[in-house]
């Protein structure tokens, strides 16, 4: 994960309450962790997707949302 690890952790925390779009995730992560760059967020999202800890879901024409996969449901305290 490298420098994306901490942001990835906050992304998982942000998605604990349910699916959210990238913009909403960025707002939540910034609220929790201070200033996080948009590219860092997408770097973390890409890595979490690659590890199948989160997944992308279509939202009917709007921006896609992200949600925790079955591997992570109930794992994030």
């Amino acid at each position, binding site marked *: 994960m490298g420098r994306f690890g901490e942001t990835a952790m906050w992304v998982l925390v942000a998605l604990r309450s349910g699916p959210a779009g*990238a913009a909403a995730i960025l707002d939540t992560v910034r609220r929790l962790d201070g200033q996080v*760059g948009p590219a*860092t967020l997408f770097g973390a999202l890409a890595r979490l997707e*690659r590890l199948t800890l989160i997944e992308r879901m279509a939202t009917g024409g709007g921006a896609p949302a992200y949600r925790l996969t079955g591997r992570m449901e109930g794992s994030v305290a």
Partner: protein
Amino acid sequence: MSRLLRLYPRAWRGRYGAELASILEARPATFMDRVDLIRGAVDAHLHPELVARNGETRQARDPASGSVLSGLLIVLGSALWLVGVTTIAIQPLGFGDRESDALGPFVAIAGLLYAGAILRLVWSGGIRGRIGSGVIAAFAVTVLPMVWPISVFGFYGLMISLAVTALNRAVAGRWPGWLAATISVAAVLAFGTNTESGSMWLATLPAFAMAFLGVLSVFGRLPTGPERGFEAEGATA
């Protein structure tokens, strides 16, 4: 801001570009955001596997698997190399020999083929491969137009280019170390020969090595080293 997004690989933009652009429209980017975007672009180039579908990445980044064109170029270039070495061995060339001019067309063709093979390998090697190998390939192409020096430096420059490319692949985990080492030793031996020393046969070694690689490449059997990158990183996470 869209200029910064153009720094990202096409595949990355295809997957995340619209979302990122939407965020940047809604939230004016600070200076640090711009720095972050540049760092993100570098990361995206270093880790194309992040936006590749499963199984797609290895094919795209492997310098030889499925690269028939590259393999054919290497085989053809190696054959021309052997012809050139034989020609020089039969009639040794010295500095300033006018006879060397007769080899110009042959050298140009062989050099272009090698340059094509190098560039093909570089192009399919990801950014890590592009930086190191690109510089060497540029050197090889620059040396190419010279007539008499190329009989001394040009061939060896091209062969060293390939050796360095092979080493680069080994460093990137694409080729096993023993293969890169073999090619490198052969190139060094070739470099140590002189067109008038009677040991020109040594210069055939890299040609055989590269021909072997080319054949393996054509048939898609080029062995690959352990994949380094996010998968390995993720496995230990």
